[in-house]
């Protein structure tokens, strides 16, 4: 119970921090431009069937950027600012606190979905109708949950890594491709498909497109896959964060401010 309370406090902390840090909302400035570019391409190439893809892609990219960029900075920033030591000297473990903050960051990224839809409607006069709104809402919700889990793992991986900046800069496009964000997974070479299936974004992209088209019959399997992959990432992230704290205590990597 107290760990959940700490998670919730971490969410509120991140809300307060993001309100005072305009850079946290950068993705909301980028998403309309991405939408504009993608929609312009689909319109000029006379592909009305790809409009939905062009609107959904910036939303998924927004989630991923939020996970990769902001979530990856949480622990290093706390460390640099001298908050890491009092945090690990507190009874609540660090992992759930990071997860709570990551959750808020991801929710900010999710707003890119709404922005993309508005850009298409207001800027291009293309109102993307969602054939199955309930499934679409479920798909967005489980995608956000899975992103929170994955972001918790990414946060831990980036902290443990000695090449944080390189990783952060290079983990964008591989996941946009494997996640079927830019083009559907079916359009990728066959040997990439098994790799795509372990990236939750590939399931999310298909489910979202299916909800927009209204032809997503077997929705249970992708929802389970998204949640399962997200939960596995969350568990791995919490485990890795604990390992990192233990290693810091063992090797004397914890500095006083």
């Amino acid at each position, binding site marked *: 119970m*107290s760990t959940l*309370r*700490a998670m*919730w*406090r*971490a969410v*509120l*902390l991140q809300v*307060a*921090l993001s309100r*005072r*840090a305009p850079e946290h909302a950068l993705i909301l400035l980028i998403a309309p431009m991405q939408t504009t570019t993608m929609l312009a391409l689909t319109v000029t190439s006379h592909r009305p069937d790809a409009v939905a893809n062009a609107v959904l892609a910036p939303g998924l990219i927004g989630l991923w950027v939020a996970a990769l960029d902001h979530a990856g900075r949480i622990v290093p920033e706390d460390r640099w*600012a*001298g*908050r890491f*030591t*009092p*945090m*690990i*000297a*507190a*009874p*609540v473990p660090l992992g759930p*606190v990071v997860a709570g903050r990551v959750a808020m960051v991801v929710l900010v990224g999710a707003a890119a979905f709404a922005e993309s839809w508005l850009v298409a409607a207001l800027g291009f006069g293309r109102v993307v109708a969602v054939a199955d709104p309930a499934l679409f809402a479920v798909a967005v919700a489980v995608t956000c949950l899975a992103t929170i889990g994955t972001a918790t793992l990414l946060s831990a991986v980036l902290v443990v890594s000695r090449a944080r900046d390189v990783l952060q800069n290079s983990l964008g496009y591989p996941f946009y491709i494997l996640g079927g964000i830019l083009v559907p997974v079916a359009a990728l070479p066959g040997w990439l498909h098994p790799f795509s299936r372990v990236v939750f974004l590939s399931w999310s992209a298909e489910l979202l497109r299916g909800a927009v088209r209204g032809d997503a019959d077997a929705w249970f399997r992708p929802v389970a896959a998204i949640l399962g992959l997200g939960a596995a990432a969350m568990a791995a992230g919490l485990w890795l964060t604990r390992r990192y704290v233990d290693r*810091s*205590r*063992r*090797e*004397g990597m*914890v500095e*006083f*401010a």
Partner: protein
Amino acid sequence: MEAAVHTSGLRRVYRRGRKDPVVALDDLTLTIERNEIHGLLGPNGAGKTTLVKILSTVLLPSGGSARILGHDVVADTRDVRSLIGLVLGGDRGLYDRLSARRNLLFWGALYRLDARTTRERADALLERVGLAERADDRVERFSRGMRQRLHLARGLLHEPRMLFLDEPTSGLDPVAAGAFRRLVLDLRAEGRTFLLATHDMDEATALCDRVTLIDRGRMLLSADTARVGRFLGERECVDFTHPDPSVAEGLALLPDVTGVERRDGAAWRVHTAGRDGSRRVLGWLLDRDVLTARRGEPSLEEVYLRAVGDRGMRV
């Protein structure tokens, strides 16, 4: 009743790749009684911070054991964390873009406090440390002294029985440092125990019941602050005031005198070889119409300087 802190043969070694390992703490056995303010002194690199880190559970020892109020810092980490408060000096360690109150609300959750309790305690503590009127101001607008008081409020939020203070008044002006020390004394009166790591000898003398001096990871002495001068053996000193420097020059020639130093204006301190020497110096001063002179023991600072020697700039 268990001591507030007890370490036995505590050892910490830092491995540095292919370089020789650094022994930061070596066989340190120390007891701090409950409700005591205990000073931890030593030059840079002596092992003070390493000891505080181990006792506050953020660093694991390489050997030996340490217990806080009966709980082992390695085996009972969670219990220990509920019992201790960590107050670090410096400008960092807080969320600068948030208000003092918001900072405390977040840290309260990390100590498993519910929202209502955290709010009540945060308000009370902000009042107590003199920040109530600035509670909703961003921390980035706070002076160093105000930040320090907020650090203390954070450390007290979960009502710990043992507090670790690391250079708490470093960089504070004398008024702010004095206020901070009074607050510490008030908190001790409530039954809390303090371990104060400091370089400030005046602070240690003013606050601490006992002090421990460590260097190169080893304990050099641990004693009541008032009696720490006895660690210099038979050495004593005589303090006197006289406007004429020739008196001091004459004193320096006496066989029992090991040194004469000017303290402040007309104030002098004479170091003697022992009690008999002090008596002879006092008699010599009386013969020269010196009206204010008193025998004393070397101060904590003198003991520190003699024990540490010329290590000041070396680590």
